[in-house]
C-alpha cells in the first residue's frame, strides 16, 4: 500500500534510485552526478576539494572550472589529472558555474552539485545534498549553514546581510530561504536545463534562488556544516558589503518582475 502511494507520486521525477526501494518500474538507473567546482586562484585547495568530492559518493564525476586563474591552478589540475575546463577569459563565478551546467546538460547528468573551490564546503557532505534531492520531491537543494546547530557564523555583518536577503526573498516569494548566499547546492536535471540557459553572472547565489523559485522550481534546504575558508578570504568585505546588498536586492526585484516574460 505504501509502495503504491509512492509510485503514484513518482512518475514526474526521473531521478529515481535503487536506494529508495521503489517498485521495479521506477528503478531506471542510479543518478549520474557531476560535481561542479568553480575555481579562481585556488591552487592550494582545489585539488583536495576535487579529490574529496570524487571520493564522497559512488560514481560521481568532478569538473573544475578554472576561471582564468592567474596562479598555478591550471598546472596543478593538469598534474593531478583532474577533469577541468579552462575559461579563456575571467567570467566571474556566475559564468564559471554556468559553464559547468552546460557541461552537465551536454553530457546527460541527472544531478549537478556546486561546491566552492576554496574548501569552505566540506565535500564529505555532498551525499547529504544528493540524498535530499532524491528523497524529497524538490528540484534543487541548498546546503544551509544556519540550519546546522553547531555552525558558528563568522561575523555580525554577514548575519545581518543574510537576514536582509532572506527577508526580501520571503517578501517576494513567501518562501523561507535561510541561507540564500550558500553556494553549496544540488540541482536536478530540470533545473540544469534552465540554469545552463539562464544564470546570473554577478552574485549568482541569492539571485538564482529567486529566479528559480519564480520560474516554478521548488527548493529545499538541508543543514550542512561549513568551514572557515582554508585559504584566501571572502570577496565581499567592508564597504563592498553595502554595494553587494544594494545590487543583490535590486537584482532580486528585477528577477521578480521578469517572471515569464523572457
Amino acid at each position, binding site marked *: 500500500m505504501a509502495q503504491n502511494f509512492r509510485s503514484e507520486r513518482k512518475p514526474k521525477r526521473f531521478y529515481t534510485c535503487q536506494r529508495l526501494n521503489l517498485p521495479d518500474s521506477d528503478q531506471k538507473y542510479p543518478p549520474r552526478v557531476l560535481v561542479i567546482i568553480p575555481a579562481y586562484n585556488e591552487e592550494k585547495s582545489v585539488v583536495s576539494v576535487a579529490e574529496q568530492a570524487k571520493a564522497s559518493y559512488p560514481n560521481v564525476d568532478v569538473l573544475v572550472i578554472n576561471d582564468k586563474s592567474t596562479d598555478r591552478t591550471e598546472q596543478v589540475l593538469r598534474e593531478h589529472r583532474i577533469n*577541468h*575546463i579552462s*575559461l*579563456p577569459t575571467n*567570467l566571474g563565478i556566475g*559564468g564559471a558555474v554556468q*559553464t559547468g551546467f*552546460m*557541461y552537465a546538460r551536454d553530457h546527460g547528468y541527472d544531478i549537478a552539485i556546486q561546491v566552492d573551490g576554496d574548501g569552505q564546503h566540506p565535500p564529505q557532505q555532498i551525499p547529504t545534498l544528493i540524498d535530499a534531492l532524491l528523497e524529497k520531491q524538490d528540484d534543487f537543494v541548498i546546503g544551509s549553514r544556519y540550519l546546522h546547530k553547531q555552525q558558528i557564523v563568522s561575523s555580525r555583518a554577514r548575519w545581518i546581510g543574510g537576514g536582509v536577503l532572506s527577508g526580501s526573498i520571503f517578501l517576494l516569494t513567501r518562501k523561507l530561504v535561510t541561507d540564500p548566499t550558500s553556494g553549496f547546492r544540488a540541482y536536478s536535471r530540470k533545473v540544469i536545463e534552465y540554469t545552463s540557459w539562464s544564470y546570473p553572472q554577478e552574485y549568482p547565489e541569492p539571485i538564482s534562488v529567486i529566479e528559480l523559485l519564480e520560474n516554478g522550481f521548488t527548493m529545499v534546504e538541508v543543514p550542512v556544516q561549513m568551514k572557515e575558508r582554508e585559504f584566501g578570504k571572502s570577496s565581499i568585505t567592508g564597504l563592498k558589503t553595502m554595494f553587494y546588498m544594494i545590487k543583490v536586492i535590486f537584482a532580486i526585484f528585477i528577477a521578480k518582475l521578469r517572471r515569464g516574460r523572457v
Partner: protein
Amino acid sequence: MMPETTAMPHYGNRILYISILVSFLFLLLIVNMVRKRQLSERFALAWMLIPVLLIVFSSNRGLLERLAALVGIYYAPAIMIPIIFGLFILVSLYFSVKVSKAEQRIKTLAQELALLKQRLEVLSNEQTAPDRSQ
C-alpha cells in the same frame, strides 16, 4: 533701463550659427570615421542623432522659441542645453544596452569555446593513448 540693454552688444542668432557649424563639423567627423571603418554604421547613426537634431533646432528659431515658452525658459537658445543633455543620455543608454548585449555574447562564446577545448582534449587523449601503450 534702456541704456543697460543697449550697452549689451546684440548677438542675435550667433549661438545658433555656431551650433549649426559645430554640428556639421561633428557630422563630418562621424562620416569620416565610418569611411575609415573606425566606427560601424549602426553606432554612427546613433551618434548622428545629436548633430542632426541640433541642426533642426538651431535653424528654426521659431520652433526653439515656442519650445522655450512651453517650458518657461526666457532665453530661447538656452533650451538647447536640456535638449543636448537629453540626447546624450539617450545615446549613452543605447550604448550601454549594446555593451550589455556584447558582454552576454562574449560570455556565451567563452563558455562554448572552453567546452569545445575540453572535449577536444579528451578526444585527443583517447586517440594518443593506444599509441603510447605500443
